[in-house]
């Protein structure tokens, strides 16, 4: 970070260019996935005459609203492969980007509260191990050794019967991740263009040749849609449908406290996930609001439900004060897995449908999206996640591992 005198504005990490009239590739969406896509387009594929078009400000959507959890303990082979690729990239990115974004591998516990939970969890641990993903099954007593503030008393409505544990999982500071990618993109010549909303697509027959934006027409034969909650809105402008539904997803933080929570705890059954940020806030999330919505806010009873769950697991939080709640818009797929690949429009690619769990996948999503845009072919990691799976029936049902929020 640049040294600056008190009161002086620090050096900008990226330029604020006006859009050029054309680029070799355009990425729609300046969130984590869009930034990572542009980063790997430049770094892995040598494409530096490219632009990121962001309708608001950089990383102001779900990248600013997630609960920063990173893990790769998904059930199916296809998911384990892409999320584990992401985790391996996370492990090298702070050094590669020369930016300490507080990636902390403090582990994640996914609690089991019923016999069926236990069976599903043990199955997932074994599946993870077969896929080279670190995973262990812990008894309730072992859970308490990892996270002493969890209430493992059998005398509660939903007792903790055990948990899966992934030690390499953790958290990272989301906005620093965005800034790290943005600085690296900018240094390689990528134009990051904010306040530039895509309002339409220019096509020659069935081939995309550019986009109309609030800052003028921008031509490009290769366009990637990386717009999370607004993917359906963009797809409609391009003339096709996506099998996603946009829902509000809420999260909240407490006031700052001394470090009390050493890991990440998730519980599908009582419906909450909790970690403690470096600064000291307890960060909690839960499920989506049931209705479709683009309002970046949800209903208060959802928060009430998640606080009840948090208090059952962590009685120590009884006197904690809520500091702030917020909502983002997540695009949820029927099988709780993302869509990454070609669209019905030639030259137009989509990365969407991550639902409630896109942050953890940021680097891998960018890696495979860049490959797909640069070569016109899916990478082996995103080949199973194409739109065609809804026709072939080869769904990747991750409702269990995607868990809490679906």
């Amino acid at each position, binding site marked *: 970070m640049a040294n600056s005198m008190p009161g002086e504005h620090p050096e900008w990490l990226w330029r604020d260019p006006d859009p050029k009239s054309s680029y070799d590739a355009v990425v729609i969406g300046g969130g984590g996935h869009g930034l990572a896509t542009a980063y790997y387009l430049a770094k892995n594929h040598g494409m530096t005459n490219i632009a990121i078009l962001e309708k608001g400000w950089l990383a102001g959507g779900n990248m600013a609203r997630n609960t920063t959890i990173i893990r790769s303990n998904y059930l199916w082979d296809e998911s384990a492969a892409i999320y584990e690729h992401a985790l391996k990239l996370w492990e090298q990115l702070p050094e590669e980007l020369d930016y300490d974004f507080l990636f902390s591998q403090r582990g994640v516990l996914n609690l089991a509260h019923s016999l069926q939970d236990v069976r599903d969890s043990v199955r997932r641990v074994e599946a993870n191990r077969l896929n080279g993903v670190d995973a262990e099954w812990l008894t309730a007593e072992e859970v308490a050794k990892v996270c002493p503030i969890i209430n493992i008393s059998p005398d509660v409505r939903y007792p903790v019967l055990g948990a899966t544990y992934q030690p390499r999982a953790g958290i990272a500071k989301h906005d620093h991740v965005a800034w790290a990618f943005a600085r690296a993109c900018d240094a390689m010549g990528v134009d990051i263009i904010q306040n530039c909303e895509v309002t339409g697509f220019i096509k020659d027959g069935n081939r995309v040749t550019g986009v109309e934006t609030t800052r003028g027409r921008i031509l490009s034969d290769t366009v990637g849609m990386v717009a999370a909650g607004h993917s359906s809105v963009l797809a409609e402008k391009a003339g096709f449908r996506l099998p996603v539904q946009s829902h509000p997803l809420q999260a909240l933080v407490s006031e700052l406290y001394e470090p009390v929570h050493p890991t990440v705890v998730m519980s599908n059954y009582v419906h909450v996930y909790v970690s403690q940020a470096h600064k000291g806030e307890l960060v909690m999330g839960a499920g989506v609001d049931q*209705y479709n919505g683009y309002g970046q806010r949800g209903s208060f009873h959802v928060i009430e439900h998640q606080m009840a769950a948090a208090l059952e697991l962590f009685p120590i939080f009884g006197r904690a004060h809520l500091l702030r709640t917020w909502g983002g818009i997540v695009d949820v797929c029927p099988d709780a897995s993302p869509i990454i690949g070609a669209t019905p429009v030639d030259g137009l690619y989509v990365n969407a449908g991550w639902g409630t769990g896109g942050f953890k996948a940021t680097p891998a999503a960018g890696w495979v999206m860049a490959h797909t845009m640069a070569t016109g072919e899916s990478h082996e990691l995103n080949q199973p996640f194409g739109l065609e799976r809804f026709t072939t029936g080869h769904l990747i049902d991750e409702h269990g591992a995607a868990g809490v929020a679906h």
Partner: protein
Amino acid sequence: MLQIKCPWCGLRDETEYKYGGQAHVAYPEDPAALSDEEWAQYLFFRDNPKGPFAERWVHSGGCRKWFNAVRDTRTYEVLAVYTNNDPRPEISPEITATGVAAGGQ
């Protein structure tokens, strides 16, 4: 929390209701005749508009009947409620949400 007017029970809290997604999606008349693409559209693809959306709700904590609503997905305002037998009402942009919701179905 939303407040939604059940056509039979009147205005109640959202917690009494369950959501049913897009309304007016008919079961295919001849399912066996559908191509894989058409079947995929029926099973997995739903409209996801940013704006007025005709959707299903069930008053599961009350009369347990299904009904339809038009709700604006930007503001979450319920613009109209109507029974399953009624066609989707025309929503004029000038109509205020309170006017329509109060009139109900």
